[in-house]
């Protein structure tokens, strides 16, 4: 929470409506996202109870588990979910594009699209991860055979859940996270986890204030929880009798069908409102123009998708291990940290409102160029180099010291080194002199437009978009003994395949 966002929350409370904290969309929104609203059985370990799933807002597919403690029915649910997800994933593998690599000497191919799964909240992402975990090791032969689609579903769900931890990835998103990235409400972050309340603030019904809409959204009788946990009142008063009726009717075909239909009706009633909220969220996000760096991030998602799709199809492919080995875990952490830093920089570059947050904390300033020496040459070294200088006048607090390297979203490949920071004669503003290098070609005269001109409004920040090389790690087979030694390949065992699920 930054002061800028905190102020937006205060403004939201005073005006009764959520306030924007972004001017562009910072995530990719697929043309056909797959929306998934799961419910679980209370008390059980991630046991599915029901779900609505689909890419068509008008025609969700309802999946239910009439006896959630029945193992076979759980796997039947998994197979039914696979029948929705796997064709969706496969349908995105039609067209690939050539991407030059190795300085243009070679190409590799990546799919032009990738899956995007949308769930209501962070707990929905946990459901995806755990459901992937409980299905990916299953076998299609042996003691408890499952449908071949079940382990494959598990691997794709695990892929999506792993990817969701990657900052800036859009393949699996929680709607609450997606919305709170762009709007601040007049309630707490904890209350924002309730999708109905959050949307009550962002798009309240006409004539209703956000506070009132959000309060109504907290009544489980009006707005069932967005899952995966169900409302205890619903469990006790409606679900339990309906499950009991189904169990009592097992020997009577007609009664069983009726009881099944009643369960479907009840569970659809719990899911449908959230389903509609999900698409309202999609529409709100779609109305925002995408940030310029959203597409390159989505390309990274497409790379990951292409790689994983190829891996799944290769001969020697295994489900993801239960836990990463020491080297893999360290590499992953390093990757996530670097992704986090570049994601933060990219959002600031794409969005003046995000940049404003960095200006407030002194990591950036914006101002007007008041002086420029575009053809200044530094000839103190072996060979003369072009080192233009500019002076920027700003009203922002400037905390950078001489020597600091700054970058401007307008010219990302150019570095500005701080030479002087002095209070302007009027006392309220600050003058910053910067020496520029890079992004101006090789000659000693800068190409037009490559050096900021007098009068230009410009922003400089310490946030850099430059590629950060990863730390180096020992190869997998050289994992030191202090970290458990080289891991063995995780080949699923009989025990994995037959583990209990009760």
């Amino acid at each position: 929470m930054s002061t800028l966002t905190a102020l937006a929350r205060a403004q939201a409370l005073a005006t009764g409506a959520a306030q924007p904290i972004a001017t562009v969309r910072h995530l990719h929104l697929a043309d056909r996202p797959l929306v998934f609203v799961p419910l679980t059985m209370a008390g059980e370990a991630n046991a599915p109870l029901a779900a609505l799933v689909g890419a068509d807002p008008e025609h969700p597919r309802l999946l239910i588990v009439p006896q959630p403690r029945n193992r076979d029915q759980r796997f039947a649910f998994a197979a039914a979910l696979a029948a929705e997800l796997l064709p969706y994933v496969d349908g995105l593998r039609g067209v690939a594009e050539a991407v030059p690599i190795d300085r243009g000497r070679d190409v590799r191919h990546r799919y032009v699209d990738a899956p995007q799964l949308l769930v209501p909240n962070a707990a929905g992402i946990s459901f995806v991860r755990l459901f992937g975990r409980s299905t990916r090791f299953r076998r299609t032969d042996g003691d408890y055979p499952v449908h071949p689609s079940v382990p494959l579903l598990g691997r794709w769900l695990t892929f999506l859940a792993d990817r969701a931890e990657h900052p800036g990835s859009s393949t699996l998103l929680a709607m609450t996270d997606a919305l709170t990235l762009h709007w601040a409400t007049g309630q707490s972050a904890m209350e924002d986890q309730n999708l109905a309340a959050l949307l009550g603030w962002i798009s309240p019904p006409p004539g209703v204030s956000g506070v009132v809409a959000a309060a109504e959204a907290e009544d489980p009788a009006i707005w069932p929880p967005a899952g995966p946990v169900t409302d205890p009142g619903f469990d006790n008063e409606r679900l339990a009798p309906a499950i009991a009726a189904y169990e009592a009717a097992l020997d009577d075909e007609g009664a069983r069908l009726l009881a099944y239909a009643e369960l479907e009706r009840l569970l659809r009633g719990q899911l449908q409102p959230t389903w509609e909220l999900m698409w309202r969220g999609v529409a709100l996000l779609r109305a925002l123009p995408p940030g310029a760096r959203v597409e390159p991030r989505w390309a990274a998602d497409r790379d990951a998708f292409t790689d994983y799709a190829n891996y799944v199809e290769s001969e020697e492919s295994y489900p993801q291990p239960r836990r990463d080995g020491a080297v893999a875990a360290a590499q992953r952490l390093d990757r996530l940290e670097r992704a986090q830093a570049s994601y933060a920089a990219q959002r600031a570059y794409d969005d003046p409102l995000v940049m404003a947050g960095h200006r407030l904390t002194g990591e950036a300033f914006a101002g007007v160029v008041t002086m420029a020496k575009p053809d200044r040459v530094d000839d103190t070294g072996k060979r003369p180099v072009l080192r233009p200088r500019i002076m920027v006048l700003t009203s922002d607090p400037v905390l950078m010291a001489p020597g600091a390297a700054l970058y401007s979203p307008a010219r990302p490949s150019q570095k500005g080194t701080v030479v002087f920071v002095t209070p302007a004669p009027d006392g309220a503003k600050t003058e910053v002199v910067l020496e520029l290098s890079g992004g101006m070609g090789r000659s000693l005269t800068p190409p037009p437009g490559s050096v900021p001109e007098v009068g230009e409004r410009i922003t400089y920040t310490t946030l850099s978009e430059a590629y950060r090389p990863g730390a180096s790690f020992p190869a997998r087979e050289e994992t030191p003994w202090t970290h458990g030694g080289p891991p063995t390949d995780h080949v699923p065992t009989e025990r994995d395949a037959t583990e209990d699920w009760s």
Partner: protein
Amino acid sequence: MLAWRIRSKWARVTELEQRLARLRGPVPPRRHNARTIAALTGNPGCTRRAVLDSAGVDKQRIAAHVGFPAQSGQSRFAIARGNVFEAQVKADGAAELLRLLRERLGLPIPEVSYDDLDTPDAPDGPDGPEARHARSRELLTGAAGRADAAGLLFDHPLLRLDVAGQPVYLEPDLIALQVEGRFHVVEIKSFAVIDDQADPAKVSAAATQAAVYVLALRQLLTEAGHDPELVSHNVVLVCPRDFSNRPTAALLDVRKQLGTLRRQLSRMARIDALLDQVPEALSFDLAPDTAGAPTRTPAELAAALAAVEARYAPECLSACELAYFCRHEAAGATAALGKSVREELGGIESVEVVLALAAGDRTPTEEQAEAAALLRTAARLRAEALS
């Protein structure tokens, strides 16, 4: 001299008891259990909660009567699963549990005797909680003196803890395990541990509840003249493993939770100091008629609540029955938006003041000056980026 001191202390205790009884009205105080005691640490700075809990007021009923009922209740599926799991772990003299303790935790338990301290009587039955507690105390303190290495398991011991000067009996579904002369509290929970990972919020709630038992067990040993350190600060958490019904166990260090709990309990032990700040005539008596319906008006009770200072934070929503009332009351306070929001707004309490300072419509006081400058810059930057 000594006699006088004792009498005066006695007089103060009864005076306090009378005061708390007046606050509560002519109904028995609400019984605490490990969960409610653990919940006391949720918002330690709140006087309202400390006063109501000390008096044993039924916050749930009060909240409902003033029009802000708490969303409560537990799914019967969850309760059923919890009961099944616990019964399974304890079956056959806790055979499954012992295997785990040996294998997973490497506790050297050669041979174990198992004592179920439960009596068929309810705690209020002819035996009464005092008698049951006495029996637990006898067995537990007896064991504390023994030096033999054999393990001892105690199921359903009835422990006691003082909350705001009142003895509270804790009827845990726990087992106290003694091995090599040291006691470990065993807490059985039915949330899953999958690939050695569990929901951190659930683990931390379990740790706080287990800490309540550690504290009560330590108090019992101290009173019998034993070293409280005989009770380990490492508790044994038993949960279902992965997606199965089979248990797994882990040791959990609850020192941090013990500290928080002790602080809150000692704050409540000094409840008389807190009571000095509230009106003498204050009462949360619902004054039920013969049919049990409250006769006092909601407005009257709401005014009584308002007379005791609260400290609402969004965390109350999952920890206190009065949360919706207090949230409503705190409308317009920056704290209601979250602790971090309030901090980012320079600690200024009211949203209205924040916005006035940000707009430059209000002259900041001396201690607001820094926050005001930041807020003005923030407002300027937001407006500029949104224009």
